[in-house]
């Protein structure tokens, strides 16, 4: 039930004392003054409290249970980092305050820029972009500008593997690049021979995720990057999946020129559900002048200032300095984990994924199976063909059994894909519980497949008609009187 449906005329959650000042008329252009009441819900305080408490109880979150949403790194984020981001000292800062007032915040951002350089092997970082895809867009703008400055405006082709996250081709296309898809080979990796066919003087660059969306490490990455460089292109690293390699491998050392990170995955801000996020972009020295402004620099006497004078800067990509609260969480996380701690995070994320992969492979088919990184993909096509149960049905049944469903139908190169990312923060018992649930579902598929086709039954709403929702979306609630055609 929506709070609007609880509304009754004249009910309210407050009582104000009688007005003790004279009423005055708004001095405003008449057409700016509202003529109808705004239609806010009229409810009592208790109704409001119950309404939102009930909603929160219907919610599923990492704080409630296992959330193996592949590609999204839904790991537990320490509450300490939230507390710091919310602290009065930081949350009451205003971006228009004088630099001198903001020294603590600037120092934090300056240090974070340097830490991200160290973690990724890049030379300079901009903290501005507000999400992963925004970082990609920033990276693509840098590539376009770089080729323009160097008189290579004919370079219009961006190469992207067919396993890429959908945002990659979208970001390149938005900047006006022509996207060329590179097929994966039989191991699920970039097909180097296929890549060579597309390398010519028009190549502006490549976008690569490593580990890729199958959770596999692109072992030919150095060769791929070198080939693209030889064709005069730049190499872009989608570092959304950094959770798998921190302290172990660096994109900078793999030869990449530009990288973005999703702080709202690996660095202690929850991913998804509308943000806020943060997708900082790092570059090698020769591209530093192209970064969006401002960067933070260390001035004389240990003071920090904004740096706006970058010769080829693509400009600003967001208001002010990015999503500061996300930067605070990332900084607090890195400081409290330390270098060894971050390395351990990646080791545990990879260990957990491999443990669960190994357990599930007793009964399920794993796509391109071999040692994986932080996630892996099940190929449930055989289940569909043999038992008539879709990946979607299995995912829905997991909700009944108390889990968030994994990512499904992605990556596109695996039919009936189910993409599982357990993350480092889950215990062995939790992983076992999930594996048992998956085995149970397989047994149900064999014996009582209708349970799966009708799932979920125990959730606040049962199976939704996704097709109808997409074909005839109703995006706004309307009062009874307003409905109709």
């Amino acid at each position: 039930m929506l709070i609007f449906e609880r509304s009754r005329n004249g009910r309210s959650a407050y009582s104000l004392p009688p007005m003790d000042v004279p009423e005055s008329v708004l001095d405003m252009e008449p057409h700016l003054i509202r003529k109808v009441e705004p239609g806010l819900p009229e409810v009592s305080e208790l109704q409001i409290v119950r309404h939102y408490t009930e909603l929160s109880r219907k919610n599923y979150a990492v704080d409630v249970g296992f959330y193996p949403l592949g590609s999204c790194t839904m790991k537990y984020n320490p509450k300490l980092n939230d507390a710091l981001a919310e602290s009065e000292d930081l949350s009451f800062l205003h971006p228009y305050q004088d630099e001198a007032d903001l020294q603590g915040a600037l120092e934090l951002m300056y240090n974070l820029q340097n830490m991200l350089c160290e973690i990724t092997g890049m030379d300079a970082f901009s903290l501005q972009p507000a999400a992963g895809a925004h970082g990609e867009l920033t990276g693509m703008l840098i590539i376009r500008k770089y080729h323009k400055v160097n008189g290579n405006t004919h370079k219009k082709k961006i190469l992207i593997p067919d396993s890429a996250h959908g945002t990659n081709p979208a970001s390149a296309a938005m900047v006006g690049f022509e996207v060329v898809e590179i097929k994966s080979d039989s191991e699920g990796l970039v097909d180097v021979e296929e890549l060579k066919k597309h390398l010519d003087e028009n190549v502006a660059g490549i976008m690569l995720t490593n580990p890729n969306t199958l959770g596999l490490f692109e072992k030919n990455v150095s060769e791929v990057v070198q080939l693209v460089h030889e064709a005069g292109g730049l190499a872009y690293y989608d570092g959304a999946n950094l959770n798998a390699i921190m302290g172990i491998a660096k994109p900078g050392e793999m030869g990449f020129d530009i990288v973005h990170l999703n702080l709202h995955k690996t660095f202690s801000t929850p991913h998804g559900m509308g943000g806020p996020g943060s997708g900082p972009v790092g570059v090698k020295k020769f591209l530093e002048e192209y970064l969006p402004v401002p960067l933070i620099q260390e001035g004389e006497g240990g003071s920090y200032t904004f740096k706006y004078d970058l010769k080829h800067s693509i400009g600003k990509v967001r208001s002010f300095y990015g999503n500061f609260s996300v930067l605070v969480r990332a900084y607090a996380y890195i400081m409290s984990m330390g270098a060894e701690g971050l390395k351990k995070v990646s080791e545990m994320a990879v260990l957990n994924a491999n443990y669960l992969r190994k357990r599930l492979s007793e009964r399920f088919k794993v796509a391109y199976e071999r040692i994986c990184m932080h996630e892996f993909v099940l190929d449930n096509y055989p289940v569909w063909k043999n038992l008539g149960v879709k990946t979607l049905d299995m995912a829905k049944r997991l909700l009944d059994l108390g889990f968030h469903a994994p990512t499904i139908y992605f990556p596109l190169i695996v039919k009936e894909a189910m993409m599982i990312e357990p993350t480092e923060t889950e215990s062995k018992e939790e992983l076992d519980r999930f594996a048992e649930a998956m085995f149970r579902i397989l047994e149900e598929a064999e014996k009582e497949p209708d349970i799966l086709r009708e799932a979920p039954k125990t959730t606040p709403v049962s199976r939704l008609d996704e097709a109808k929702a997409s074909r005839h979306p109703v995006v706004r609630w309307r009062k009874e009187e307003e409905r109709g055609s």
Partner: protein
Amino acid sequence: MKKFAKSHEWVEVEGKTAVVGISNHAQEELGDVVYVDLPEPGKEVKKGEVLCTIESVKAAADVYSPVSGKVLEVNKNLEEKPELVNESPESNGWLVKLEIVDESELSDLMDEEEYRKFCESEG
């Protein structure tokens, strides 16, 4: 008689006009179709190029033109009822009518029986 491409489109030629759609197998794999992004009439496509895009609850998929030609007409019914692609992929759920330029292009497409075998070998 229908001919099928490896990328799961069908084409049926009457005179100079070719009707194009996706196969029943393709619609099953795609799942519920929610939107079809049809081309403008007049657009010219080459065999193997993207003709239009179909969006399902699972994914967005490109449809490749099984022959070269010029778009004469698109299936307007799909704007309101994209589900026709699921309900009747090889008839009422057709996508595009093309004026074909080279009939010999049909020769390397599969007939129904060959296509069925091809799908089995793929799955």
